[in-house]
């Protein structure tokens, strides 16, 4: 097994970009990642590309160069970007390739994701007004608040942190800070979650150049190593989005499984992680994911967040780039955005939002439909 290093990162600004296709944004991200690595498109032996709604990534070879590389499209729900990364990681780790690129981009229609449930005896589900991701998040955090005493004010604090961090991030979509009152008084979308507690489907692109670790210094003095990369699907009994029924018996969700596997693979524990990007489809998700990923006990988030421990200058910074809340969620790119941010932070290049004291390790986590989770651990 070979170690894997990230030597180049590129991003197209997240947000809404009229007249710019998702593919355009993917191509920009690739060109920026290559420039960052000091590599050429023709150097790449493989690409794994992810997009949900913006076309087949492999067609970008007609714009970047017809070099004959192995280009595989990845389509894997909300873990699409994360799955492009794990595929790239394994391609190098196994010794098959020395250099390649993981990329993702997307461009979604405005408003909540439209989900059509056809076939499989499920037309009634959408027709009856239940095929909405927002409802799942409302129901999951509502039960969690009931069980563990998380308050709505804490949910508001997660949002205000996200928008404050987003304001420091030139690549973010939403760069205007909001007050807790504004968050709490915005439209109630899915009780107890208000409009400013939810992220929106958006647009953007991210690309990461990966090489076998022994090649890293040929490209950069600041390589960042992928210590683990895991994707897990759900097990029987877990509580997932788009479930017309749930089993009465309970099992942990894919986040818990992916997290445990990632820590085992990296050979370190949660207390050795210096900062994390955690899936924050809405502010309650960030709260629950802190515990599901092993960074605290269930319920402990209430005091951690009230005490500012997850702020950039806090004990355990979470979503330093503003997360999904400030960046939106272009599904193909979202998980890769988290890795991009962690590479910046570990390089010490995160500018105004740099986590202090020279962080050495960083963690990413995506979660989404249909009950899938991806985790990475990075180190210097």
């Amino acid at each position, binding site marked *: 097994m070979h170690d894997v290093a990230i030597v180049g990162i590129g991003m197209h600004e997240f947000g809404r970009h009229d007249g710019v296709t998702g593919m355009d944004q993917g191509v920009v991200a690739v060109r920026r990642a290559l420039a960052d690595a000091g590599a050429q498109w023709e150097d790449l032996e493989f690409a794994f590309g992810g997009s949900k709604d913006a076309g087949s990534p492999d067609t970008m070879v007609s714009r970047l160069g017809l070099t004959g590389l192995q280009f595989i499209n990845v389509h894997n729900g909300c873990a699409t970007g994360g799955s492009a990364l794990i595929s790239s990681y394994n391609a190098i780790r196994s010794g098959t390739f020395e250099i390649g690129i993981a990329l993702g981009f997307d461009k979604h229609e405005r*408003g*909540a994701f*439209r*989900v*059509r*449930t056809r076939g*499989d*005896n*499920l*037309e*009634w*589900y*959408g*027709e*009856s*007004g*239940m*095929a*909405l991701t*927002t*409802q799942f998040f*409302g*129901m*999951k955090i*509502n*039960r969690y608040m*009931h069980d563990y005493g998380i308050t709505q004010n804490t949910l508001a604090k997660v949002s205000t942190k996200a928008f404050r961090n987003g304001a420091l991030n030139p690549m973010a979509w939403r760069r205007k800070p909001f007050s807790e009152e504004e968050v709490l008084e915005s*439209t*109630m*979308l*899915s*009780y*107890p*979650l208000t409009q400013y507690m939810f992220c929106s489907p958006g647009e953007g692109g991210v690309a990461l150049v990966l090489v076998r670790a022994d090649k890293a210094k040929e490209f950069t003095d600041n390589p960042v190593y992928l210590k683990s990369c895991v994707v897990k699907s759900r097990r*029987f009994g877990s509580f997932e989005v788009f*479930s*017309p*029924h*749930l*089993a*009465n018996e309970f099992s942990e969700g894919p986040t818990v499984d992916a997290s445990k596997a990632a820590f085992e693979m990296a050979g370190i524990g949660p207390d050795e992680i210096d900062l994390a990007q955690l899936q924050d489809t809405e502010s309650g998700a960030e709260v629950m994911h802190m515990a599901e990923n092993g960074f605290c006990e269930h319920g402990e988030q209430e005091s951690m967040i009230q005490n500012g421990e997850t702020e950039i200058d806090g004990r355990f910074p979470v979503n330093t780039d503003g997360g999904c809340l400030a960046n939106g969620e272009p599904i193909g790119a979202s998980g890769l955005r988290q890795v991009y941010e962690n590479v910046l932070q570990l390089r010490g290049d995160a500018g105004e939002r740099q986590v202090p004291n020279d962080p050495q390790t960083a963690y990413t986590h995506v979660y989404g439909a249909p009950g899938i989770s991806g985790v990475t651990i990075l180190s210097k």
Partner: protein
Amino acid sequence: MTQVSVQDTVLVGIPGEPRLIGGKCPDCGNHVFPMQKDCPKCTGDQIEKVELSTKGILWTWTIQGFPPKSPPYIGETDPENFEAYGVGYVELPGEVKVEARLTENDPTRLRVGMEMELTVVPLAIDEEGNEVVTFAFQPTENN
């Protein structure tokens, strides 16, 4: 106006006594909803149709505060006339938790652990002038 089920393979007994059609795996006892042949618990493929219980306990809930996109939603989507509606999981003892509309849309009148029973709510009027209904749970008088 005659009531018709939103999908008669899932919600039966309309008009009259609504029942939900789920399935039970003869190999492991697992319940599913709606009916499917394959069992996500034991990988069996012989799940048999059953009528699910009409009473259960509210496990969690939310209030849908904005009109869903149409399609797929067939209920009211005009923001002027849209009324928020409750959605929750109701745990049917010994069977399964079913996701359903709730008749109640006031957060102060819903709580985890409430006893609930099956009913229907109207969604739309179809081309023949029938009232299309879907299933919902309402708090019982015991609450």
